[in-house]
């Protein structure tokens, strides 16, 4: 047992080092466009795994990701922007005095973005989480829309519908993937702890869980607030990646996309969410041409704007109806799992009966 643990830990460390080396290479050699997509992959990974914690593990349904991301994005943007940039942005009405003359470093700004989102989550989720899972969805969807209304109206805080421009582009692959890995690590530790078992108990049967002494409300709000913290951080990363934000960036359709990614990846699988988030971001870029006119031979095909989202939502509905497990179906990537798959494939090649699959307890995420 000890030996195996060591092997897996070493493999994880090796994988992390290889991945870090890859990020280093990418950051220095890849072009701007590819880098942006890779950053977006990380940000969507955070969105998807945090949604998975709320829905896949706890059985509550949140459509507030767009709203919490907006809170985080505005918090990080306002904290990181230079004093001069703020003055240039707020030309209609002056910015609130306590924000005017501060310029924080990126790390504390991101942290603050997460804290703000978590506080808002506490206020919104508190009442909704006392009821069944789908009430949270309606309350958070409403909240997401309201936060936009509020951001449009509080001009001295957010510059209204004009948005914020010239946010410093601090987000690099180290920041984005560092945050993504940290999120996955924290969530992994959480779901493998006694808290995680309580969360799954809440998901599977609230009445039974409560009868066994699981504090329903406490655990629901825990999952919700922890998730929202990381969503806020991801929002901050997004703001400092795209450098221009306005309330329209955070439409509720963003929340739908996150639901779709997490469901397709497999509920209750952080690996699935990560892979689905990366696939989604990449495919969205690969499919971009179908929304502009293109030629097949001599035939001119008009592009259909919005077609990618139709395909995505149709695929989502298909997955829900016919393949509810998603890509990973609640399983996680583990080194043991990988080795047993390799072994089985090898056996199959040599026409031997498959060896029984060993269920790995030490699940390792990358």
């Amino acid at each position, binding site marked *: 047992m000890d030996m195996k643990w060591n092997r897996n830990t070493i493999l994880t460390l090796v994988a992390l080092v290889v991945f870090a080396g890859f990020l280093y290479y990418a950051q220095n050699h890849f072009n701007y466009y590819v880098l942006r997509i890779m950053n977006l992959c990380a940000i969507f990974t955070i969105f998807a795994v945090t949604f998975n914690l709320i829905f896949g593990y706890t059985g509550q349904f949140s*459509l507030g990701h767009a709203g919490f991301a907006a809170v985080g994005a505005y918090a990080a943007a306002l904290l990181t922007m230079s004093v001069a940039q703020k003055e240039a942005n707020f030309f209609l009405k002056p910015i609130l005095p306590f924000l005017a003359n501060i310029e924080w470093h990126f790390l504390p700004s991101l942290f603050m973005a997460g804290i703000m989102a978590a506080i808002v989550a506490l206020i919104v989720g508190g009442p909704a989480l006392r009821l069944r899972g789908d*009430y949270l969805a309606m309350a958070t969807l409403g909240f997401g829309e309201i936060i936009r209304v509020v951001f449009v109206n509080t001009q001295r805080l957010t510059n209204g519908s004009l948005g914020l421009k010239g946010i410093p582009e601090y987000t690099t692959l180290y920041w984005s993937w560092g945050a993504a890995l940290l999120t996955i690590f924290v969530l992994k530790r959480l779901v493998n702890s006694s808290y995680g078992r309580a969360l799954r108990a809440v998901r599977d049967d609230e009445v039974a869980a409560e009868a066994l002494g699981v504090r329903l409300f406490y655990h629901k709000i825990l999952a919700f607030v922890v998730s929202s913290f990381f969503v806020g951080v991801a929002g901050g990363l997004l703001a400092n990646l795209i450098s221009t934000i306005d309330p329209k960036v955070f439409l509720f359709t963003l929340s739908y996309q996150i*639901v*779709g990614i997490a*469901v397709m990846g497999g509920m209750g699988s952080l690996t699935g969410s990560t892979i689905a988030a990366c696939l989604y971001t990449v495919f969205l870029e690969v499919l971009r041409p179908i929304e502009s006119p293109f030629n097949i031979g001599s035939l001119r095909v008009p592009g259909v*704007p919005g077609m990618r989202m139709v395909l995505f939502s149709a695929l*989502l*509905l298909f997955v829900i109806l016919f393949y*509810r497990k998603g890509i990973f179906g609640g399983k996680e990537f583990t080194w043991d799992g990988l080795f047993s798959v390799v072994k089985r494939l090898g056996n199959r090649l040599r026409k031997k009966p498959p060896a029984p699959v060993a269920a790995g307890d030490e699940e390792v995420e990358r």
Partner: protein
Amino acid sequence: MTLPLFFQHLANGVSLGSLYALIAIGYTMVYGILRLINFAHGDIVMIAAYFAFYGVGIFMLPWWVSFPIAIFLTAVFGIFIERMAYRPLREVPRIQLFTSAVAVSFLLENLGIVIFGGRPEAFQRPAFMDQTLTIGGAKVVTYTFVIIGVALILFAALLYVVKYTRVGVAMRALSKDIETTGLMGVNTDRIISLAFAIGSGLAAVGGILQAIKFPQINPLMGVMPGLKAFVAAVLGGIGNITGAMIGGFLLGIAEILIVAFFPTLAGYRDAFSFGILILLLLFRPTGIMGEVEPEKV
């Protein structure tokens, strides 16, 4: 505020409340039977408005032909959605059903953007609904009366159906216990389809009346009314049809009057009903007419 002005706002609020109530009934009927928040209900509103719009705009039908056809098609569409997306999932955990509803909503909105176009369209009001009347100093446009009148007639009809007809009895039985009702010889699938048809049909009426009141339609027009109608359904006590009507009227009137009395809050108008939802969930999640329902083990 002068009295005529107050009545003007009140009429406005009642007509807005009629819209919310019409849409809220669909939520409450489906919730009563399947315990599902039909997330795609708001998008049904949008679909109906577009059907009516194309009936007049493309097929050159007069409005009194186009509107009923649109309502009928939307009701059929509601049945279709239930068949395709909800019925296969009846045996799985309820939250999965809700996920499916979210996916349907997402698909309808995206299809709307691709098929109907993302740009808002101007909806033509029938001429007689577009006249401004002055009654005792209060200026009221005729569509206000049409909206309120249509809503009240439909509510009376619905209450009659639910209370005194055989399908109505079956519907109420279903909301108590689907399985037992099925064993009693009721074709449960058909009653559920019917509930979806009625809910979607009323939402269609709501959608068309909404397009008459705010004559601009776009593929996301159903989201906000849908959300507010849901708040109305919770306010009235979800699962209770009379409650949904009362909740709808209360919410519409409150929304208009608050903006009328505190014009500085006008920008936050959409935030208001959400605040009501949060307060409701905190203090009285069963709403005005709702009963406390013990969670079944």
